[in-house]
């Protein structure tokens, strides 16, 4: 698995970003680092691919952005989850859990026979 990282399912990146931002406002680079760290590099995400996703989420009103300054004194664009983003995230998570549960039951049952 390591040499052939998983391609992200369509839409999954959005959920990852929203989940990441649930912890608090963060700039784009921060989001990319956090995803890298928490997924242990399982998913292959070109760092640049994050930005169109962020812009799209912003356009959909799920996140909002403002320019600010990092701890190290650099300027960066900070993203924050909006209430609409929170709602979207929880419904996405619920859908994901049901999906995994159903798949798990089917696949688990199949392996038992």
């Amino acid at each position, binding site marked *: 698995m390591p040499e052939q990282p998983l391609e992200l399912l369509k839409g999954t990146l959005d959920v990852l970003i929203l989940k990441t931002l649930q912890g608090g406002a963060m700039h784009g680079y921060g989001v990319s680092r956090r995803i890298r760290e928490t997924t242990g590099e399982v998913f292959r995400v070109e760092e640049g691919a994050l930005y169109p996703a962020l812009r799209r989420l912003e*356009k959909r009103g799920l996140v909002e952005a403002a320019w600010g300054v990092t701890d190290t004194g*650099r300027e960066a664009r900070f993203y924050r989850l909006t209430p609409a983003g929170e709602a979207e995230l929880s419904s996405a998570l619920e859908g994901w859990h049901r999906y995994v549960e159903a798949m798990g039951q089917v696949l688990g049952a199949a392996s038992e026979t």
Partner: protein
Amino acid sequence: MNSRRSHRGGVFPRFDAREDVDREIRAHLDLRAEELEAEGWEPAAAREEARRVFGDEDSVARACRAIAASHQRAVRRGRVMDAIGQDLRFAVRTLFKSPGFALVALVTLSLGIGANTAVFSVVSGVLLRPLPFDDPEELVWLQEIGNHGGTMSVAWPNYTDWRDQSTSFAALAAVNDFNATVLGGDEPVRADGLMVGEDYWKVFPTSPLQGRLTVAADHVPGAPAVVVVSRSFWANQLGGRPLDGQSLEVLGIRVQVVGVVADGAGYPTDTQLWTPAEPLNNSTSRTSHNWSVVGRLAAGVPVGRARDEIDLITKRITALPDEDPDFLATGAAVVPLMDEIVGDLRQPLYLLLGAAVLVLLVACTNLASTLLARGASRSRELAVRASLGAGRARITRQLLTESLLLSVMGGAGGVGLAYLVVVAIRRSAPAFLPRLGEVALSPSVLVFTAAATVLTALLFGLLPALRLTKVEAGEALRAGSRGNAMDGRALVWRFLVGTEVALALVLLVGSGLLVRSFRTLLGEDLGFDAADVAVVSVSLSNLKYPEPEDHGRFYDELLGRVAAVPGAGAVGLISDVPLRDGLANGRLELDGDLDKQAIGAYVVASGGVFEVLDIPLLAGRVFDGRDGPDGEMVAMVSESFADRFWPGEDPVGKQVTGGGMDNFYPVRQESFARVVGVVADIRHRDVGREAYPTVYFPYTQRPYRIQYGASVLVESASGEPTSMAPELRSVLRAADPDIPVRMGSLGAIVASSLGERRFLMFVMGGFSVLALVLATVGIFGVVSYSVGRRRREIGIRVALGAAPESVVRMVVRAAMTMVAGGLVAGLVAALAMTSAMRSFLYEISPTDPLAVGAAVVTLFGAAVFASWLPARSGTRVDPMVTMRSE
């Protein structure tokens, strides 16, 4: 820079998606490289690695930019809507805070916009809407031109020449309208009929709702008489039953109903019956001008070319051997049918529209000055908002939103008022206004109103908005900074007040001229006394009364019965009622010599008419019992007829014929009548037109002139002509139950003949009173504001011993300098504009000193009053109170 602009700055902050995205990517790479360096990478290598893991910078940037830009557009749209909503809510709150101002402004705007909407709905319906026929621009109206240069009706053979020789027309049709008794329907009625030439239905193509239109076979001499009826006539008089050989009696002829067409299927639109002209008419005279001609131009032929062609054909026409060439057409006029119908109304209606626009302008000026004065007291509020970051454009927009809100509410009120006016106009149905059915608040009228509303808001809102936002924030924030009363804005005030005064003056002068003209007209001696005279118009069935003598005998008896009605005074019979019916005029012969000719009007009457109308007898006698059918043929003449044709001679005993006007009647051989009496002149045609030389003949000797109708005039002894109506009705029913009766009073007829002038005068008068009130309120407002700002100064003056009167004088004098400029400007404008009113004025010059002087004095007086009132109340305040409040 972007972030700064998004806080303050223009109406909307500018956003540059390219720069925003590039900056973000740069930030990412910087942070990534920074982190790598912290892990020990060389700076250059760190930067290289950061770029590598980022991926394709360009495609990421492109994707981001596209999304950001579209996002930004959506945000901007939303922000505009939000801003409008916010501005509106704020505007509503502001208006509610000063309900008095809002109410006055709303009433002002409703009146101004309402006046314009109402007048424009008339202009639009009457003048602008195309006629309700197919391809109406092809329809024309043809007339002959006589050697006097004026237009006249068309001789039948001339019409057939035009029809046969011209190429400019798809169709031409002679028409002649009549109003006659129609029998054979559900009840005897008078109906509006039209004799039409063969191609009439080609000029006005239509599909019959029932039966058929008239065809070529109906339009030949000797063809059986047929008639096409309008839908409403069919429904009301024929019970709406399927056509099945029903017949009617029209003009003394039994005619078969062959078809039903929609109401208004042809012109004139109120025609109820259309009957072929050819079987009824065999005139070959080139000088009997009895017909009108409507035409439809061939495709693509301009009116001018058709006119030239018809004019040429007409010039080739020569008189018959026994005809007087003086009465021959010398040319022809061809005009669009629209001009024939509404041509006379263009000027008065556009005059009223102009007046309504002036009223609205006065209203705008008034509101502009009020807003400016109010705005001055709002300057602190505005300064606070400005210092909190609202830009000038933002505040301007807020102020304009307030104006627009007011204007839209005023516009709504105006539409309501206009609706009431339109309903009232349609209900009162003034006789001078054609196409009344098309006067309505149509979509095009509402578009006009909407445009006027927006324009109005800009007119009264823009100047104050720009002025008020110019105030430097810091200056206005300092409490107590009030400046001098007529400070730097003096010029604006002078302009606003001056404009208001000038506009109002133009209106006052205009309506003053109309009032003067109308009074002059009312002062004219009509030559007859219309008071207390009832008019009963009668038309007999020519089947029931086939011979002219039958009509004569009927009226002999009727006059006797009417005279016996309780309350009836003198009684008379006349062929044409003054100021209602036209006056037939033409060539007459004099003194037993057929070559000795005169031109005069021809009226048939009984001797009683002169008593009923109080027309003085100047010489000889009036008609009486001696002048029966078998008596000597007699006539009476008017004073002007006698003066013109027998100057210095005694007209009594002279001889006169009915001339050409008797051509179509079986006149007794000895057609010369002896003049037995001379009566004073009367204004028969129009209150404003000189009397026409007239010959009167007794109805007993020329009953053929009354066989299509006559009017009985009854003087009421009680002074109330309508009170005799029931008795008159029953007398008529007793004489013949089949007579439809049309009853009225001569007073009403005289009043109605002045209807258009009265309407014009009252509407103009109303507009100018409105303008006067608005201007007065405007001056009052400006002076009140000024006095308010000078309260401290006035207080000091009074405290220092100035007499209150002198302070009042000072304030009024200052106000009058503003007014004077407006009066001068208004006077110049009025003199320039009223010359266009010449055609509306009766014997009054457009520069009539009385009208102009009265307007100036009225306006000046109102202005003095409007400035004196606040000046006086300003000096009444205890100076100590005002000075302490500072």
